[in-house]
């Protein structure tokens, strides 16, 4: 059942709308890069020893340890993190994705691992191209199941090898991936309401005449 709705078809038409509105998407026309310094911990050092160039530290303004991993070695790194006795990251605290339309790799999958016995945590990020599939982490942590389904809903990232990759938060027939930056807040139909500088939906519009009309007549036209 899930085989049919595997998103290659969806994915094929996805990049097209992505390309157009990206230019006028909300803030941030320049690529995103975190400020701050790279934090070295035992875990990151150990990872660097083991995987060398495949992992690189991410700078953090708040002093959180994190590494960026090449997509092909992601599962290897995560498995190592869980099974290595010195890392022992047995608890996947969070798994999500972020969309940076201006970055070289616009999608980033972010893993927040935590070790209950050792008490240390690590952020693992992997960059993805648009439409690129990511290997699943369900085999490593069962909790990744729903997180990955949610990311699939919201960003359209396909997780290869996921046992049950269907929609979770969105209706089954939902079109588009709402958490991508080109997706307007009010949905595709209400793009018109997104016009002020803060890009927030204006319940009372900027135009005083329009606002006055709304207040006096008690309606927004469509209601």
């Amino acid at each position: 059942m899930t085989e049919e709705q595997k998103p290659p078809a969806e994915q094929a038409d996805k990049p097209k709308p992505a390309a157009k509105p990206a230019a006028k998407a909300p803030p941030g026309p320049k690529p995103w890069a975190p400020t701050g310094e790279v934090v070295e911990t035992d875990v990151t050092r150990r990872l660097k020893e083991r995987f060398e160039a495949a992992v690189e530290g991410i700078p953090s303004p708040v002093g959180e340890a994190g590494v960026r991993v090449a997509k092909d070695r992601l599962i290897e790194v995560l498995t190592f993190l869980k099974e290595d006795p010195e890392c022992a990251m047995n608890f996947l605290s969070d798994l999500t994705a972020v969309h940076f339309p201006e970055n070289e790799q616009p999608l980033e999958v972010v893993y927040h691992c935590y070790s209950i016995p050792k008490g240390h945590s690590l952020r693992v990020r992997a960059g993805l191209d648009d439409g690129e599939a990511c290997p699943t982490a369900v085999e490593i942590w069962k909790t990744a199941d729903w997180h990955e389904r949610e990311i699939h809903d919201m960003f359209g990232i396909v997780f290869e090898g996921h046992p049950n990759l269907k929609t979770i938060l969105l209706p089954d027939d939902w079109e588009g991936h709402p958490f991508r930056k080109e997706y307007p807040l009010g949905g595709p139909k209400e793009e018109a309401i997104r016009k002020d500088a803060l890009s927030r939906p204006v319940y009372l519009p900027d135009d005083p005449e329009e606002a006055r009309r709304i207040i006096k007549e008690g309606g927004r036209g469509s209601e």
Partner: protein
Amino acid sequence: MQRFLRMITFPELREGLGVTLKWFVRPKVTEVYPDRRPVLPYRTKHRLHVEIETCISCGQCEKACPEGCIKVIKPPKEVFKEDKRPQEFFLSLDHCLYCGQCQDSCPTGSIHHSDEWELAAYSFKEYLFDKETLPYDLEKKRYRENFWGNVEDKTGG
């Protein structure tokens, strides 16, 4: 033997029955609402009240409102020099969250929540206000004046 005795005499069930019986005879906590109206504490956040006379059209409340319920329109420059009161003030309470962000950001205390809490209406139009119809009640304006209001009347402390 003791276990058997416990099994047939239901001590824990009798204990439970005792608890319910205890509250059966104690005074009840129901608030008999329309007969006795609750006294709300001073910090309570209900219907927004705006005192247009002291407003200086700074627009802080507009920026602070997460739902965009407030719209302040500054008067033209030449008028603003003498009279800082806004030219128009639109308030749409139908999606107000009662979060208090506007009241926190207001430098003059002109916009504040009141304890007018029976807000039901037949139409959402009754929640839309402009400068003339803004809800305002001088007696209710005590948020700034009576910051440290006590709670003893409410929580029985």
